[in-house]
């Protein structure tokens, strides 16, 4: 059981950190994509 407790602790922290980084990356990149999208459509 100790293996599984350690495994899920590491898994949870790693995935959460990955998601936090992805969320920031996608939020900034997505904003840039939307601006580009609207500029293209305006043109």
């Amino acid at each position: 059981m100790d293996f599984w407790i350690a495994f899920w602790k590491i898994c949870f922290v790693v995935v959460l950190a990955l998601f936090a980084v992805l969320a920031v990356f996608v939020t900034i990149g997505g904003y840039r994509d939307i601006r580009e999208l609207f500029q293209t459509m305006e043109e």
Partner: protein
Amino acid sequence: MNEHTAEILSQTNFSSIDWVIVLLYLSISVVIGLFVRKFVVNMTDYIGAGRALGTCLGIATMTGTEMGLVTVMYSSQKGFTGGFAAFHIALVAGIVTFLVGASGFIVAKLRESEVLTIPEYYEKRFDRKTRVLGGIMLALGGILNMGLFLKVGSIFIVGVTGLSAQGWALPLVMTLLLVLVLIYTTLGGMFSVVVTDYIQFVVLSAGMLVATYVAIQVIGWDHLFETIVAAKGQAGFDPFVSEGAFGLEYVLWMAFTAGLVSCAIWPTAVARALAAKDAKTVKKQYMWSSISFMIRFLIPNFLGIAAFVLITTKSPELNALFFPTDGSAPLDNLYAMPIFLGRIIPTGIIGLISAAMIAAFMSTHDSYLLAWSSVLTQDVIAPLRRNGMTGAERIKCTRILIVVIGLYILYWGLFYKGNDDIWDYMAVTGAIYFTGSFAVLLGGLYWKRASSTGAFLALLSGIFAVVGLGPVQALLGIQISGERVGLLTVAFSLFVMVLGSLLFPDNSYAMSEARREALNDKAQMQEV
């Protein structure tokens, strides 16, 4: 429900300020939808011109759609009942999605075949009768699958706002939500555009991370693990322990459903792959989205576990409601996570999270109602009519079906009496479609000798999956786990596909006739 219980359930941080936030958020979504509407035609041109959405926006819209309220609810229920062992669902979903992206298994080949829907592929590769049966099985599995969406979404609203004190609250919220969803969808689904999906992604991502942080602060990291050890023992952590909520068969079933089916066979996910710029883009998007596919199970699982710990160790009055010792009926454990959020998340933030959840709920319903009604129109009714259907007839038929399906989910949510966890119910009902579809896609894409008779029989064999539902088993007087029924149906569909193809191979004349018919129909569709 007595006054004492009503008093317990109405304790929430959700205040009138939060109601204002919810109304404001939904109103702003509508305004953005109206503003973006003038660009929608251009946007279609923009994407159609071969310039697909950027990767970031692609991931945001994929996550915004996939991380809906229903997903959060059924995943938290799994955490509540299964403990940390439920994390295996997130892990296998992420790993399988990544592997599908890396290898291009099914999705890249499907993209190369240049079809826009899976039933269209059935006709292109096999024949028209396979397309019609594929459409029927897809709609049957899909509509049954979303049968409890309305109830689950309403339970969240009722639980988080403290309305659960009144017995009339759930049916009333269900009816109001259905009316909202039908208006939203029949307006043309115009709000489900990339901008609102992007906003949903930002608010929901931040909200989920904040909720996780607050949950750890309130309950304590070590206390979470200690409580699950005491309450569930080894079964609360090891998913392979068959005495727990899962077991080896369940893990395999999850690798297939939460992993392969969710990303490579389920129509709403495949639609994105089929609309992508090329097969290379599909692979890239799937590899990145594997993190989102993991997190959409993992955080709600965690919130369900946190709700279990709060209820069993810090709130004796809630513990008495969810785990009564006096023989009375326990409160539906779907209420656990929303009640938990209502108690720990501060006023204001809970309103913002709820608003984003409701917006995601509307967006999911919109996509699904349109998906199943258009499958019935385009792949079942239109091909069966001798003179085809005009564009106006197709739109009218789709709108009528949207209302009919909406009324069905209201009825089903109020009267279905199964005791299965929502996720298990969804896996079994979805299996009516995806077990046969997996065999047909695998055979069609990777085996030259796959025949239309084999495909037809494989699709038909998916119907055996209904045996996995509790009420059906009660009717038949048998007891088999849903995952075992699902895995056996997958194996049976594959067997039937191979046997049917070997015993009844396609003759080349019949196939060329069928393909010519398909091409004629496609030309007619383009004219419409």
